[in-house]
Every structure is written in structure tokens, then in C-alpha cells.
């Protein structure tokens, strides 16, 4: 690919076409269980949502307020209202050009990238494959799309590892992982998953934790009925700041980073400022407990700089700490087409957040680090 704008989004969300799953999964095998769009009555009006595994439709038909225009933010109720730029890869290139973005890493959008909760390993595998194949078709349209594979966690680790390989052949550039494994499955830090990390390390595919992979959704503090919808959103969103601080120490102290020292781990939509805590707290614990006597020969902060990468978009304070964290460990993100996105003014906002940052640092933060971390060599840089 050619670098024209010198800006790469390390966190965007690919939307799905209404037939992305029905056209790829066996109707005779799965029938109405296949993810498809259906309508329901809600709050006195008819709206569409995705129906999966014969459950009633739930959630949004598409999470794309950044592409919906004024009044911002609003979400589509019906499939017909979803902007084509959200789900059609050829059309979406126009959005990238308007926003001045060369390439984007693709995280999920409804119907999401996790089908574990239905408890049906066969269904999960077929749906995950349809998801991954749909995004491989985006790559056929343009190498400016860098999708992340969904994985079938109900399958044995070697089957998961084979899906990683299959997805990578289809152009996927990393995989998406849960912060907490779904109930009933072994812990994220269990060695049973080692074959998955092994294949990701071997193929140079970073594993990814989205900000929403933190404990934020699970704990009881959140479940207070005294908040309005907006207040609840504000109160919980910024706690994603600690997602890396919850997960990185687990990866380090459980030994995953020692067993897989070349495995790259990316945290999207969690901000960068939380990494200061990871570095200082993990080093402090390592020093005060003399953990080198237990075989942990690498200082945790060195492990962080070797293997951990975080994304930013709005933090002017966080950016001031870029050298404490590691200038090579940070990437810009747009979050297109979600509410946090600055589309179509991404470039101006990136310049604002990076005001006063040297040109050399800026280039790393805006696109060079992303090229390196995802192993992409551009054909030309304009």
C-alpha cells in the first residue's frame, strides 16, 4: 500500500452488511440461527437489530454515529438508514480519504465478534469463520483495511490456532481477545491457550484487547439505577483507562510474556495514560518481592516496552508522558464510526493533540509505529 496521508488508525470498526452471514453460512445447517437483521417494537417505534441463534433481535442495527451527520450523535433505527460507507468497503474508502487516513485496523461492530455465549461450539466456529471471511473480502477491495480475526473460544486451542492461520491467509493482521474469558472457560492466563499465543507470535500477529475488555461492564458499582443514560455512559467510559492496567499485569505475572517474549499485545480505546501505572506498579511489585528469585529475570517495564502497545486519540496530558511510556509503543486511533471518533476532522484533531510534539515523534505516533507493529512495508510514502 501507498502512504498518502501519513495517518493510520489503529482502532476503527467495520460494520456488516445485512447478508454478510446469511450468504456465508449453511441455511440447511443453521436456519434462523444465522445472524440476520430483524425488526422489533421498542420504545413505541419499530427498529432493527441483529437476531442471532434464534434469540430476539438485540442492540443496534449498526453503531455508526460518526457517519450519520447532524444532529450528532444519532444512531440508525432501520437497516435502510445505515450509511453505505459504514459497511461497503469500496464506499468506505471515500470516508478514509475525506478523513485523511491511509489505513485502519478493524475491530467489530454489530453483530460483534464474539459468539461464545450461545454455548454451541459448532455454531461459534461457523459464525466466526463467516465473520473473518467477510472481512477478508474487505482486504480484497483494498489493502488499506487491516482486520482483526474473531476466534472460536469454545473450540480446542489447536482448532483456534488453525483459525488464526486461516484468517491470516485471508489478510487479517491480528486477533481480538477477551479480557476475561467467558464463564466456564479457562482463565486468560491458563496454559491451555498457549497454542493460540504461539501461532500469533510465530506469525507476527498482535493480539488485541479493546478498552471494553476491562472489568467495567461486570462489577456491581456500575449497576446503580440513579444515573441517567448519559451519566451512566460518562461514569463508566473513562474507567476503560485502567483496562491495560488490569490485563498487562496478568500477562506479565502469569508468565505469558516470558513464554512468548515476541508476542505483541495492543490495547485499543483505553488511552495511553494508564500505562504509567502499569510500569511503576509492576516494577515496584517486582522489586519489593524480589521476583527475579522466582525466575522473572526481565524487569516488567522492559517487558512492557518490548511487547505492549497502546492507542491514543484525545489525551493532551497523556501525550506529554510519551517518553516515560515509550515513544515506539503508541499509536493514533480514530474509532470510526463510533461516537468517540472525530471524523471527518481526524487530522486536525490529531494535530491539536500533538501540538508541540517534534516532527520525528509525530510521525511515529501518527503512522510509523503502526507500520512497524503490523509489519507493513509501504510501496511508497508521499
Amino acid at each position, binding site marked *: 500500500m501507498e502512504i498518502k496521508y501519513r495517518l493510520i488508525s489503529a482502532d476503527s470498526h467495520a460494520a456488516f452488511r445485512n447478508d454478510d452471514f446469511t450468504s456465508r453460512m449453511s441455511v440447511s445447517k443453521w436456519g434462523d440461527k444465522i445472524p440476520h437483521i430483524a425488526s422489533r417494537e421498542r420504545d413505541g417505534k419499530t427498529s432493527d437489530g441483529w437476531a442471532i441463534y434464534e434469540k430476539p433481535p438485540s442492540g443496534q442495527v449498526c453503531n455508526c454515529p460518526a457517519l450519520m451527520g447532524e444532529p450528532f450523535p444519532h444512531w440508525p433505527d432501520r437497516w435502510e438508514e445505515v450509511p453505505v460507507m459504514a459497511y461497503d468497503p469500496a464506499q468506505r474508502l471515500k470516508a478514509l480519504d475525506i478523513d485523511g487516513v491511509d489505513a485502519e485496523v478493524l475491530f467489530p461492530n454489530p453483530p460483534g465478534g464474539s459468539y461464545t455465549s450461545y454455548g454451541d461450539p459448532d455454531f461459534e466456529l461457523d459464525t466466526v469463520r463467516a465473520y473473518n471471511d467477510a472481512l477478508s473480502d474487505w482486504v480484497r477491495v483494498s489493502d488499506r483495511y487491516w482486520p482483526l480475526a474473531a476466534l472460536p473460544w469454545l473450540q480446542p486451542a489447536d482448532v483456534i490456532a488453525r483459525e488464526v492461520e486461516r484468517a491470516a491467509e485471508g489478510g487479517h493482521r491480528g486477533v481480538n481477545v477477551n479480557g476475561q474469558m467467558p464463564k466456564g472457560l479457562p482463565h486468560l492466563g491458563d496454559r491451555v491457550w498457549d497454542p493460540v499465543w504461539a501461532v500469533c507470535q510465530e506469525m507476527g500477529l498482535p493480539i488485541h484487547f479493546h478498552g471494553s475488555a476491562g472489568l467495567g461492564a461486570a462489577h456491581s458499582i456500575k449497576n*446503580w*439505577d440513579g444515573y441517567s443514560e448519559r451519566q451512566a*455512559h*460518562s*461514569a463508566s467510559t*473513562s474507567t476503560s483507562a485502567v483496562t491495560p492496567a488490569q490485563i498487562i499485569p496478568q500477562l506479565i505475572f*502469569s508468565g505469558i510474556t516470558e513464554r512468548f517474549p515476541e508476542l505483541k499485545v495492543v490495547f485499543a480505546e483505553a488511552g495511553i495514560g494508564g500505562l*504509567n*501505572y502499569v510500569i511503576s506498579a509492576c516494577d515496584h*511489585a517486582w522489586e519489593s518481592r524480589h521476583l527475579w528469585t522466582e525466575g522473572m529475570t526481565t524487569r516488567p517495564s522492559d517487558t512492557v516496552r518490548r511487547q505492549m502497545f497502546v492507542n491514543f486519540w484525545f489525551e493532551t496530558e497523556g501525550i506529554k508522558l510519551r517518553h516515560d511510556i515509550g515513544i515506539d509503543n503508541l499509536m493514533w486511533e480514530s474509532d470510526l464510526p463510533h461516537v468517540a471518533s472525530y471524523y471527518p476532522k481526524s487530522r486536525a484533531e490529531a494535530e491539536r493533540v500533538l501540538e508541540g510534539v517534534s516532527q520525528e515523534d509525530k510521525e511515529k505516533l501518527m503512522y510509523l509505529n503502526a507500520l512497524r507493529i503490523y509489519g507493513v512495508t509501504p510501496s511508497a510514502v508521499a
Partner: protein
Amino acid sequence: MAITRFISVDDHVQETPDLWTSRLSKEKWGDRIPHIERANGADTWVVDGRVLLGGYTARSAAFMADRCAEPHRWDDVPTAAYVPAHRLGAMDAAGIQYSVLFPSVAGFAGEAFGQLSDNGLELACVQAYNDWLIDEWAAVSPRFIPQCIVPIGPVEATVAEIRRAVAKGHRGVVFPSVPHDLRDVPHVADAYYDPVWSVCEELGVPLCLHAGGSPKLQNAMPPGMSAGREAALEEVQRPVSSVYVLNLFLFSRILMRHPRMQIVMAESALSWGMLDLEWADHQADHDGLAREGYDLTPLQLFKRQCYLNSWFDEVAPFSSYLGAERILWSSNLPQATSSWPRTQETIERCLRGVTDEVREQVLWKNAASLYGIPA
């Protein structure tokens, strides 16, 4: 090395085996009283059939010859953990003038007795601790700043115990931050607790929300780890779990309704705070909370009523954004994570690059004004 005054706002006493057995009625409570049981050569704290302190005898690794090892028998617990006169010696050795006290057996965040289903037993255990801390620690030296623990309900009992304890000399209130995770009581943001916040305002005592009040705010432990690694991971996960508690107090309107209440996020650390608050302001702005009656932004509320507390973080990167007047320092005695005995060295490293004024605020001035400690 420049020695300045230092008030440590987060240290833990080790409760003694006779604390509750000598103060609670054996006739009334029998063996439900908190006591030590010996099994397989190890001493374990038990209340009403529940194991306390995670099965440990004491958490005093900072005083052990090998600080990766906790004592398993009461006889092996270092006396500086539980003998106040010996603790003063340890404080002298590390340049700690004053020490603000939190429990250990009663829960690092004062949460242990909130899990009891019997309100009467909960109150008896709480009152015995509060009496003991005044009689056995505060009476020994004014350098110990005692803080009471509370029964989490009913709210009338919480308020009455705060009044009783403060009248006896307690200077702060240790409140478990997520009482509704302990037993079936209303959500902490519910107006039900307003009398608790009001009495703290009225009496001018800080509300101390120590990290670790609810295990549900921390990720589950990976399997197959060594004890040292597991303890290290727990120590890293615990402080940052305070983010949920801080955001709750900032957004739930508790602080707006009680503008004079001061909350101390004890053992929170600093370095996650700046991003959380920058993000909270960014999000509150995007979500239009000013139109829903929020007159102050989360950062403004924080600067009016909240404190973060660290013992290992660098201060310089965060002090201007958070406000140096909102940062408190501690030694975290006698836990493994404590900076003791190299407390002064740690302070030098962490306060590198700050002005003398910021240094004095963080090390003692903020705490002195919060706890009414004379200069």
C-alpha cells in the same frame, strides 16, 4: 539526603489475638468471636465460621527477614507489627513522624465484618476494634492517628458508631467502598447513605476509601502461579481498582450533595488518575452533563473533595494536573509492598523534579490540614 517531615496516611496495625476475645461477651457470642485457630501448624483468624485476612496470620512482610514470606504462626509475627512502642521505632528508622492507621484483620478497607449476617455481632466486633485502637495505640503516642471502622448497616448504627468513635478520639472514617458487595444493603450511591456522608461533614473527618474493599473490582487470578507472583499481581491489581470507586463518587452526585466531605482514596496510587480524570472530563463534556445539573466537571470536583495516595509513583508528571494539594503520601507499613525500610530513598526517587513547596504539600502539609495535626 534531605529529611523533611513526613506523615504517612496509610499504614496498617496488626490486631492482637486477644483484641476481640477480651472485649466481646463469651457468654453472648461463644466461638463466633474473632479469634485465632491453629490447624496444620498455621494460625488462622476466624469470625463466625469465616476465615479472615485471606487465611494469613498477619500481613507484615515488610518486617520479616525475607519479605516474600508472611508469618504462619502468631509467635513469628514481628512485634513492630502489633506492639505500638516497637512500631514507633520502625517509624523512626524510616523518618515517619506520624502514621494514619488502618486495620488488617478487620479488612484493609474495613470490610471484613460487613460480611457478617448478624448486625449485632458486626457492631460488637467494630466497637471492640475502635476501642482497642484508642486504648492500645492512640494512648501510647500522638504520632498515631486513629481512624474508626464502621458497621455498614443499618445506617443509623453507622452514624451512631462514627459519632461514638470520633468522640473517643478517632480522626477519620474507614468505609468499605462497596458495601453492597459485602451483604444485602442498598447500593453505595443510594441516598440511603446520606446521613453517613453528612456526619462526616459535620464532624470534619475524612472518609477513607481504601483500595481492596471489594474483590469484585479486580480480575480473577490466573491459575498455577507461585505464591510470590500471585501476591505481586494482587498488589498491582488492588490500587487501580479504586478507579471505579472514584468515578462513582465523582458522577453519582454524592460529592455534589455533600460539598464539605473530603474523601481519601487510600492505597490508590497516582499514575492512573490523570488519564481517568482527563477522560472523565472529556466524556462528561461529550455527554452534555452540564445540561443535567453537573455544575462542576469531574476534575473540578476531584480538586475540591478528593485525594489520591501513593507510595511508589513518580509525582512530577501528575502534580500539576491533579493538583499537588490533592496528593497524599504513605509508607504502607507493614505490607510487602511498603517502601520500608528504604522509605526515604523511595521518597527521593518519587519526588524528583518537584518544587520544595510541592514536596512539603505531598509529604505532610496536606495530611496535616486534613487530620488537624499541628505543624
